[in-house]
């Protein structure tokens, strides 16, 4: 153990060299992306914020894969299995159920957004429900839910850095400054181009890892019995190779709730709206599960780490940081050069979603706060300028959050983020089908659901760490007054049910008072495809007027 600590304190030269090399390649790509597939001037939010809105099936597959399967997921899910076993595997039903849901719902959002030029989910809410207040709430919810998600991407890079023996915060700051610079320059095209590198590396690393590591560890049989032995011995409740009976409801509600929430995150919407056609969205939903297979295989790495005898490094707060488990496993099992490739995959994997998330949050600010409340007559060029600056602020904010606050705080916030973004479901997802729910009722449901969700999260202790509040997103049913049971339910699901009940009741009370809320969408807005009347032609063409090259502004 002592010797272990000593060697880990030293910087790993080969790993670091390969990491820096690949990071450099990606940085160059990020800046070059400004000139890639250029349509009109980048001084327009459709260009900077949605990459010209004409990504085809392949680019979208890489972009959405890079967007939805973040580095944090790739680090945290195996860490969950390492810590608790079966309960962490909820990520598999979660990420497979996303596709049917998005396949059915998202094309409607694509169509209405392309006909009306909506850039954010709150834009749609503004047009559909006719209420700027409701749109503002959706926008703020989106920004608040996204910020900690960006901060968590830094946690992923940090785990890799620490494994390579690099301590201190300056590497994180450098990585994010570079990221901020090329996102500012190239907009959504930067993560789209980098996603090719990221995903290729991830696929190579995972395929090698799930073949090579089990062989080195003597097969899956031994891996699972080592994990079983660990869970049987530990005193933590609710861990094990299988779910305990009271855990099942919590497992499936968490999987379903997370699947419903994913599509509501602003960065998912940004990725979906950047596609060229409705057909591209649908086609991608059949192809994206390839990433879920990768995630499932990666999750098993958490159990392999148990067999390999990995001990998590101590984090900045003095507690063991389980997020270092996967990097440590790679470090232990792979030759140095390949461990470097694997670390680069995780590090670059953090940059892609961080870029898209900051663009999505910036677009929300620009479209639904700045333009709506501060400068009504802002031109598209001004919108693009504001959004670019806002993306810098968002990323700076994420860095400050990670540096100043305990990383645990970001993880808590991310937990809260999932619960609160789910509260936008009645307004956004149900709104895509019907206006039956009154705008004020949606606002009331959102507020009550949010309050209930936050209160339940506050009221959840974590028995494993003796943390009294924000101990997890599973709420004990017994606290709701349903008898003496150990069963738990996903907090977000309870809050969503409360939200829907309030929204329905208030709608019934307010029946027939629709004055002041105009729906500016038509029924066929939800089914149109690229090329139909009223859908803007966004095929890439040579710039009509002379635009200043992106590098010389």
């Amino acid at each position, binding site marked *: 153990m002592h010797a272990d600590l000593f060697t880990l304190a030293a910087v790993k030269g080969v790993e670091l060299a390969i990491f820096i090399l690949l990071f450099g390649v990606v940085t160059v790509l990020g800046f070059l992306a400004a000139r890639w597939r250029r349509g009109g001037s980048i001084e327009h939010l*459709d260009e900077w914020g949605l990459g010209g809105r004409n990504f085809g099936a392949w680019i979208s597959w890489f972009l959405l894969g890079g967007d939805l399967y973040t580095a944090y997921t790739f680090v945290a899910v195996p860490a969950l299995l390492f810590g608790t076993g079966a309960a962490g595997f909820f990520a598999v039903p979660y990420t497979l159920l996303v596709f*049917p849901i998005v396949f059915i719902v998202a094309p409607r959002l694509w169509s209405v957004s392309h006909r009306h030029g909506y850039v954010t989910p709150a834009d749609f809410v503004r047009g559909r429900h006719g209420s700027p207040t409701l749109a503002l709430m959706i926008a703020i919810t989106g920004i608040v839910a996204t910020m900690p998600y960006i901060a968590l991407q830094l946690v992923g890079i940090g785990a890799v850095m620490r494994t390579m023996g690099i301590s201190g915060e300056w590497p994180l700051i450098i990585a994010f400054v570079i990221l901020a610079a090329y996102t500012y320059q190239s907009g959504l095209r930067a993560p789209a181009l980098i996603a090719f590198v990221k995903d290729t590396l991830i696929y190579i690393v995972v395929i090698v890892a799930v073949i090579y590591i089990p062989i080195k560890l003597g*097969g899956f049989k031994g891996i699972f019995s080592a994990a079983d032995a660990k869970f049987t011995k530990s005193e933590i409740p609710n861990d094990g190779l299988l779910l305990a009976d009271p855990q099942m409801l919590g497992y499936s509600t968490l999987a379903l709730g997370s699947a419903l929430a994913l599509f509501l995150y602003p960065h998912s919407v940004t990725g979906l709206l950047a596609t060229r056609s409705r057909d591209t969205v649908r086609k991608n939903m059949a192809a994206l599960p390839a990433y879920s297979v990768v995630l499932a295989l990666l999750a098993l790495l958490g159990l392999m780490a148990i067999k390999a005898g990995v001990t998590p490094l101590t984090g900045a707060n003095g507690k063991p940081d389980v997020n270092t488990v996967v990097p440590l496993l790679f470090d232990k099992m792979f030759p140095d050069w390949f461990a470097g490739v694997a670390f680069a995959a995780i590090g670059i994997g953090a940059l892609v979603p961080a870029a898209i998330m900051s663009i999505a949050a910036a677009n929300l600010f620009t479209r639904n706060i700045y333009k709506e409340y501060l400068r009504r007559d802002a031109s598209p060029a001004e919108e693009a300028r504001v959004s670019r600056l806002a993306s810098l602020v968002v990323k700076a904010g994420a860095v400050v959050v990670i540096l100043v606050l305990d990383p645990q705080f970001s993880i808590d916030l991310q937990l809260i983020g999932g619960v609160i973004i789910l509260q936008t479901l009645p307004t956004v997802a149900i709104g895509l089908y019907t206006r039956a729910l009154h705008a004020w009722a949606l606002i009331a449901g959102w507020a009550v659901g949010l309050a209930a969700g936050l209160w339940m999260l506050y009221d959840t202790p974590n028995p494993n760490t003796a943390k009294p509040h924000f101990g997890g997103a599973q709420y004990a049913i017994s606290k709701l007054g349903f008898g003496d049971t150990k069963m738990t339910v996903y907090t977000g699901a309870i809050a969503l049910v409360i939200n829907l009940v309030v929204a329905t009741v208030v709608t019934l009370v307010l029946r027939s008072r629709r004055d002041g809320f105009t729906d500016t969408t038509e029924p066929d807005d939800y089914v149109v495809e690229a090329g139909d009347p009223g859908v803007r032609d966004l095929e890439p063409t040579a710039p*009509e007027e002379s635009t200043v090259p992106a590098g010389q502004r």
Partner: protein
Amino acid sequence: MAYDASREDRFTRDPDSAGRRGTVQSHERNTNWYWLFVLPFVFTLLPFIYNTTSPELIGIPFFYWYQTAWIVVTAVITFAVYVKTRGS
């Protein structure tokens, strides 16, 4: 680009477009195929179906390989539904 900045019609009905809107039919057909999507929900959201270790597959307990297999099955279902409902 075709987009004219001076006429922001995102949140207003565009008077010129009154004639061309409201007339497009859905491009998808046979949407009854969507019912196939009930399958993954039923078979992955009821954990008591698969919360066992046996039968194992190359040493992997049932719980783990069953759910992983459903990713592939869902992908196949989604592709089939995509092909069957793709219209003009």
